[in-house]
């Protein structure tokens, strides 16, 4: 059972931690760094609640060992907005359209959508569906989540005409 000293950047802050090889990135974030917005659901890659961005790409933090993240830049929900500041457009979209009910799956979905919109600011319905398909939500039926994503697209593009809100 080997232990390793790793250095990684989480939400712009560098951390150096001593970790057992078997520690997952999710457990590192939650239990060592106290970043508990990243939720753990199934812990084998199916539900998507633990999704974070690893070097800009969505990653299941339960399917990534902390040691694999040596040198990586991680973004979690906590890094999207200042606690006292404005919400990130994706968070604002979820707020406006009530894209959640219990909220357990929301942090992972928000991070996936952040990545999607940074890659494609105006995604097709199919692209949105493919992204949301990687997340289990047992409350909403996804309709409000899709509306929230559309709202986030609109907010990011800077067009604020309410007439444009369709779908």
């Amino acid at each position: 059972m080997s232990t390793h000293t790793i250095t990684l950047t989480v939400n712009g802050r560098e951390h150096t931690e001593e970790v057992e090889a078997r520690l997952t990135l999710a457990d590192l974030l939650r239990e060592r760094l106290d970043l508990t917005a990243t939720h753990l659901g199934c812990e084998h890659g199916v539900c998507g609640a633990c999704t974070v961005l690893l070097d800009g790409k969505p990653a299941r933090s339960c399917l990534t060992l902390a040691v694999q993240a040596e040198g990586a830049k991680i973004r979690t929900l906590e890094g999207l907005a200042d606690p006292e500041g404005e919400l990130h457009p994706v968070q604002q979209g979820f707020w406006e359209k009530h894209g959640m009910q219990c909220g357990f799956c929301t942090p992972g979905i928000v991070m996936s959508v952040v990545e999607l919109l940074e890659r494609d600011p105006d995604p097709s319905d199919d692209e949105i569906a493919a992204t949301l398909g990687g997340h289990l939500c047992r409350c909403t039926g996804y309709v409000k989540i899709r509306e929230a994503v559309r709202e986030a697209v609109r907010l990011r593009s800077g067009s604020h005409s309410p007439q444009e809100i369709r779908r």
Partner: protein
Amino acid sequence: MKPPPFDYVAPPSLDEAVAVLADEDQDSKVLAGGQSLIPLLSLRLAYPDVLVDLGRIDGLGSIEHADDTVVIGAMATQHEAETSHLLHELCPLVPEALANVAHPQIRSRGTVGGSVAHGDPAAELPAVVVALDATVRAVGPNGTRTIAARDLYSGMMTTTLREDEVLTSVEIPTVREGSGSACVEVARRAGDYAMAGAVAQVTVEKGTFADTRLVLFSVSDTPARIDAVERALTGAEAKPEVIARATAAAAEDLDLLADPRVSQDYARHLAEVVARRALTTALERSA
């Protein structure tokens, strides 16, 4: 912590990785993207002594055109292959099949080499490499060797790779003029493992099938090349009704894996449907 205790090494070179794998005193396992292995660890279905992470070895992630193949480095992610212009143009079956692999958030870390070497009988990539007569390259203590994909899968999640070998690349033959391919599967939910799936590639010359490939996955313990259909179609008139006759006849004789979630009758029905649809779509695309 869910996974059992293990050691971890991330060697900077293939030689050092192979040296760890060749150490007979410890049970080692190669870690590529981890999207199958880490769940197996967390479910405590796998108990290796040491994980050998390939993630710090340079040069294993390229996708390049070489002669009449596209060479995909083992550590190229499934996302990179799915969005590769080279593969879309020269091996379109690869990106099409990859779109069915789990979810984008998994394909961003899951690797081509990992999926091919893991050999899950329900996975798309092993079926694709068998259908396209791809070749895999592996490095071991005695150097490099190539293995025909058709000889790679020896049983349920078992390959002919030796325990001290690392799969380093997959060479996919480029598509020929007059060819079309397709991947069709039926799964309960998008991104789930298929209950039955098929990949097909046909080449049509002067109205007849000059070459036919059909592989079913998720129906037996390895990707199953359906020789009966390939033989029946090659040389026959390139028409959907000819395909339908051949797939109906072959489905009767399929040796199906027992699956508690899918009855034998339903599995046989699905196998026929996906085989017919994959071949018919491949035929349409060959025009």
